[in-house]
């Protein structure tokens, strides 16, 4: 236990990254908000907080997959908007819900193949995908509206034995990701590939017999699937399709992952760090809302936070 805790504060030896720092920040923020405001500790606000944090948490976990292999997915926000647009189409739930995941998987597959097979930089490939998806989303749903299947709304907004469903969604996503990252060969290979990329030896993992291309493609597919899951959750929350709901989500997820101690150069990072990062983002948003900070200023503060966090991570190579 002590060894584990120590690893969270050490930059050496650990592949989990600096996750101890965000843990301290979470504790400090919770303490500050509980003492500083009356509303924070209320049951209502805490439920609200979880519901706000859940989509970011789910999407950030997806982003973690691609960041671990030294990539980046800028199409996350557009996949989220696209998913809500699909769900708000006319059609039976039994068709629409699988369609969301099949299409999202296809998006991830195209991202991954373009990056690995056609040698396109991840940022360019996913940026282009973002544009194409936003265009398709606006054709499907030019302005927010439409009806989301009732089953989606009831699994998002309900509660079981006093536990609101959003908590279950978060736990489910975390459990799934833990199994994939720490309980499968695929997860180990993600760390292996990213470690090589970060050290400037792109072929290191291949030398050890890891199928680099295939694992990278799967990482992008996983990222899109988690983004779609976040999209389904959001559709259930706002009860409609919205072409702008995913706006800037890609940056929020990157910020959450980076605050959680994950190195954007790949290979070093952790699921628990990412969860803490998403919680910090939600706590900040919640605290600023309670303090009546203008939403425009909140955007600027989030940008400043991202800048400060990545500024603290020094990389070996200069560039994108």
């Amino acid at each position, binding site marked *: 236990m002590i060894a584990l805790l120590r690893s969270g504060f050490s930059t050496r030896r650990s592949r989990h990254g600096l996750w101890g720092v965000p843990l301290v920040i979470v504790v400090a923020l919770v303490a500050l908000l509980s003492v500083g405001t009356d509303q924070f500790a209320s049951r209502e606000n805490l439920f609200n907080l979880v519901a706000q944090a859940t989509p970011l948490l789910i999407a950030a976990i997806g982003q973690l997959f691609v960041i671990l292999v030294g990539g980046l997915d800028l199409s996350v926000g557009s996949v989220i908007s696209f998913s809500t647009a699909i769900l708000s189409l006319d059609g039976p739930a039994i068709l629409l819900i699988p369609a969301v995941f099949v299409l999202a998987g296809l998006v991830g597959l195209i991202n991954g193949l373009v990056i690995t097979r056609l040698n396109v930089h991840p940022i360019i490939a996913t940026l282009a995908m973002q544009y194409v998806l936003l265009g398709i989303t606006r054709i499907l749903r030019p302005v927010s509206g439409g009806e989301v299947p009732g089953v989606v709304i009831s699994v998002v907004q309900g509660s079981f034995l006093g536990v609101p469903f959003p908590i279950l969604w978060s736990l489910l996503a975390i459990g799934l990701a833990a199994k994939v990252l720490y309980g499968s060969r695929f997860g180990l290979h993600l760390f292996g590939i990213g470690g090589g990329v970060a050290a400037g030896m792109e072929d290191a993992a291949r030398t050890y017999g890891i199928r680099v291309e295939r694992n990278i493609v799967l990482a992008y597919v996983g990222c899109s699937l988690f983004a779609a899951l976040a999209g389904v959750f959001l559709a259930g929350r706002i009860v409609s399709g919205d072409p702008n709901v995913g706006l800037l989500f890609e940056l929020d997820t990157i910020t959450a992952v980076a605050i959680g101690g994950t190195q954007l150069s790949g290979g070093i990072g952790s699921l628990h760090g990412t969860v803490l990062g998403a919680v910090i983002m939600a706590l900040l948003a919640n605290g600023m809302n309670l303090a009546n900070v203008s939403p425009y200023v909140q955007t600027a503060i989030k940008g400043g936070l991202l800048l400060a966090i990545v500024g603290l991570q020094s990389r070996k190579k*200069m560039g994108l």
Partner: protein
Amino acid sequence: MASPLLRRLAAVPPAYYVFGLLLLTLWIARPNMLNPNVLGIFIRQVVPLGILVLAQLLVMRVRSIDLSGGGIILLINYFITSRTFPEASGLTFFLMALAIGGAVGLLNGYMIAKRRVSAVIVTLAVSIILVGLVQFLSSGKPPGDVPKYMNEIFDIKYGPMPLPVLFWLGCTAAMWLLMQQSVYGRYVEAVGESAEAAAFSGVPVERTVVMAHVLAGLIAAVAALVQTGSIAVGSVRVGLDLPILAVAATILGGVVFGRGEGGVWGPFFGVLSFALLFVVMTVFGIDDAGKLIAQGLIILMAAMLYGWLGKRG
């Protein structure tokens, strides 16, 4: 690729083909639009983009990227139109714009070259901060009118040739000279080829990259002034999509991260292609959604072509 001819043809920046193809499309569909006066008006509209592309190609040559141009344009546009400085003269605005652009560029360059932070993240974050700041200052409402003299300068024409287009040609030629003739141009080329090799050869790699970003910030400030001259009323959305379009036009023009086959004129034709593309899409009644998809596909296809060429040779 078997024949050398085919290889030569594939090495020509896609912008020239796209430009030719769009010109042909327009000639077939709407021949009456192909007169100098009409085209001059359309090309004048993309001059801010054309100037911003000069910034983008410079930073992309050193394997970086600058997405903060939108924020710079928005902030400068806000200061000019909001009457925050009611007594300010044109010269004051000009100097203020350069100061803003230079400062943002310096911050970008420091973070990217010295702190080794991802260029995409830095410049996007800076852009978000600037946009948030402007929206806060203006409470999300359009700030006010553009000073008359700026619109008047923008409207000057010599025959069919609008002054902004001439200015753009001049800026592009200046950038071409900088890349071709100056020591700094050689440094940029060396860093783009390989930062490690350049460092071993005594090229000041970090300084070259910082300088590229400062220049990019200054160029974005000039683009902001031209953009402001092109509109009558200030806006809190002006120029936000320009950085991405600039990336697309640059790639289309044959400049990809570190590789500069397209030189300065390839991206120039990339911008002209976008000008024609908007005309063609308007002619065929394609809406904003279709434009987004087309932009995305163009970026993707140009990048794919270069990825494929890079793998071959």
